[in-house]
């Protein structure tokens, strides 16, 4: 699989696409893309300013996508982010739109809990530096976001988000979180997109060079597409998928995927079944078919591109 992707994407001459007849690739363009608008409602807890506090996730059993979560096995890292010049609402909006810059985050500190399900402000560090953070944790110092993640990448793999708000005169020193289901509101549209129509003899090359806007409405950076996925649903309809959007992968009868290394084309024939690793056999006219362009390194979990594929004869 990897050699074929390399041949297609890394060593390839981008000018090759100009020599290929238009129907040689399955074109995924802006009109084919879904739309996704997410709203975050991150819980906020007041704690005493400039003082140590604890945050426990021992009872957290559902993450922000309302998926099951094991508080010991699934939380690898606690990130503490200070946004000194943003309100909590601005942070929520920036996260939902994926529009925050690193400089918006004044401080990033972390703690790797191991098997623990609680952390203290005094335990966080920055790499090999252990700053005395309590003096900075003062009333009016902006928004402080705790991010519980699977994996240790900064702003990646988020499972739960919590604001802690330092306030003078507050006597609370302990925060506990137990449910992320109410955190994410979203509106998704699959029913209004224009499906990609393929012919029976079309080669399995997907081309998204004409896809310039993500499902979230942002300009598409092609280097963010890290995985291409096809999902087949044997017995459902589009409206049902739309209603259960966060569970698409688990609802799918079969999914095939492959990492994407570079460029704006992918050989779908190189995708492998995520269960048995068998190659993608191609589309047929049964059930429902989705193609997704996935970004594994983006804070927002929704795909960058998602469309329906139908057979047109």
């Amino acid at each position, binding site marked *: 699989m990897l050699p074929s992707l*390399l041949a297609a*994407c*890394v*060593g*390839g*001459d*981008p*000018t090759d696409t100009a020599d290929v007849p238009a129907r040689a690739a399955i074109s995924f363009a802006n009109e084919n893309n879904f739309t996704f608008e997410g709203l975050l409602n991150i819980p906020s807890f007041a704690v005493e300013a400039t003082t140590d506090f604890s945050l426990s996730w021992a009872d957290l059993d559902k993450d922000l996508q309302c998926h099951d979560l094991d508080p010991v096995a699934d939380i690898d890292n606690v990130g503490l982010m200070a946004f*000194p*010049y943003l309100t909590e609402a601005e942070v929520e909006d920036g996260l939902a739109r*994926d529009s*925050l*810059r*690193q*400089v*918006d*985050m*004044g*401080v*990033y500190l972390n703690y790797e809990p191991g098997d623990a399900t609680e952390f203290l402000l005094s335990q966080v560090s*920055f*790499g*090999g*530096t252990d*700053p*005395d*953070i309590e*003096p*900075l944790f003062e009333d009016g110092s902006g928004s402080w976001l705790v991010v519980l993640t699977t994996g240790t*990448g*900064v*702003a*990646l793999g988020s499972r739960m988000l919590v604001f802690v708000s330092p306030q003078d005169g507050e006597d609370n020193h302990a925060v506990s979180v137990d449910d992320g289901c109410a955190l994410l509101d979203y509106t998704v549209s699959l029913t209004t997109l224009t499906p990609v129509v393929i012919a029976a003899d079309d080669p399995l090359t997907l081309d998204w060079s004409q896809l310039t806007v993500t499902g979230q409405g942002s300009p598409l*950076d*092609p*280097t*963010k*597409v*890290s995985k291409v996925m096809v999902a087949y649903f044997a017995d459902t309809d589009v409206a049902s998928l739309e209603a259960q959007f966060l569970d698409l992968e688990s609802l799918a009868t079969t999914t095939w995927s492959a*990492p*994407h*290394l*570079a*460029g*704006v084309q992918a050989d779908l024939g190189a995708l492998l079944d995520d269960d048995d690793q068998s190659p993608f056999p191609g589309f047929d006219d049964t059930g429902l078919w989705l193609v997704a362009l996935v970004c594994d*390194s983006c*804070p927002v979990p929704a795909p960058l591109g998602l469309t329906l594929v139908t057979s047109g004869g």
Partner: protein
Amino acid sequence: MRAALAFLLLAAACDPSLADKDVVGTDSDDEATLGDAAVSDVTADLATIVTVVVVRWKTDVEATGHVEFGPDETYGISTNTTASGTSHEVFLVGTAADTLVHFRVVVDTGSGPTPTSDYTITTGPLPTGTPQPVASGTMADEWQFMVLPTQGAVAAVTIVNQVGDVVWYYRPVVEGGNLMRALLTNDRKAVLLGHAGTQGKLEDSLLQYISIDGGTVVDIPAPFFDHDLDELPDGTVAMISVERRTRPNGTPWEADRIVELAADGTETVIWNAWESLDSTPYVDQPAPNWTHGNGLDYWAEEDAYLISLKEIGTLCKVNRSTGEIEWMIDGELNEFDFGGAEVVQLQHQFELMPNGNLLLFDNGTPERGYSRAVELELDIDARIATQIWEYIRTPPLLVFAKGDVQRFDNGNTLVTWSPNGEIQLVTPEGLPVWQLNAELGQGYTFVQPVDSFYNAP
């Protein structure tokens, strides 16, 4: 070391299986007579790093040559000249991804340079995950390119142009590596990476030379390398290196050295904190490294080093020949009178300027609440430091680790707010005129502005 470097310099330009010959030109397959030489077999391939183009050509007689290239037929950039011979190869570096490059070969048999007609090639797409910062504002030609080591969600080295386009990239495949430094080498043939430990073990620290075309990666174990390195004019690498000893109570204890790694593999300890400074006052401190070297520069004009020691908060000038400390400023071992001005707190990178002034990234403490760039005029004999310039970002940032500064001939200063992923070019009046921002999850370490990939000093 010698073998490794030789391998780097002699290695093939790229894996032919990954490079397509897609040169488009009027005489790419034909022989053309230019002056006294017949030029043939002009080819252009994308290198392993697909923003780099490898141009090869042959001449029927001994000749030198170079390539002129750019976005159109006015070109604008010239490569270095090849050695006299009949087979020639150069790399075209400095072009963004997915960009059309015009180029022509210029040959010289001794009777004057003669160019071929125009050829074109398009550079390839950036690999998935390549960090792409956003640049804004305008600048004079303080530099043309900048080497950006990126930490955080992505470990990568990119080289960007003035508008933030990535023209070179490398994603180190070092499991658990801690990328601290990246330098375009003096000869412009490679990028040197310093990884401080892998999997958190400083014993496994590693230097890597990445050839400019990306086709060759040479790993050089550098046990206990930490934080920073520099390259001397002869290619010798100077680095901060930790030496472990044992406290009186039996627990491990560390301090820093300046170690040179010569091209022949010879290691020379230039300076050792254990021998040069008194560790006694720090024996009960919890920090594992009682000096915590966090910045190193070679000062060619005086054949000396400057090393910053964060735990002590002091910057030392070390005579390279004698290994003796000539002066110390800031922190616990400060010898200078600041005249009541705000003292520097826990600095990182710095620059000793030609006029003798010292430019520093002053991290500051949580109690002070902000970081700044500061310029000090030094009276070495009288041990007087006079603050003559500072820059505090609006709104302020407190940078816990890293931070970098560079001053240019026009008086503008580059200030790198490393973990905050922002680099600003500010005027002497403190007005930001250009800046570069990383996306959320990505920060920088120390950066290197460079003028050109050619005509290396």
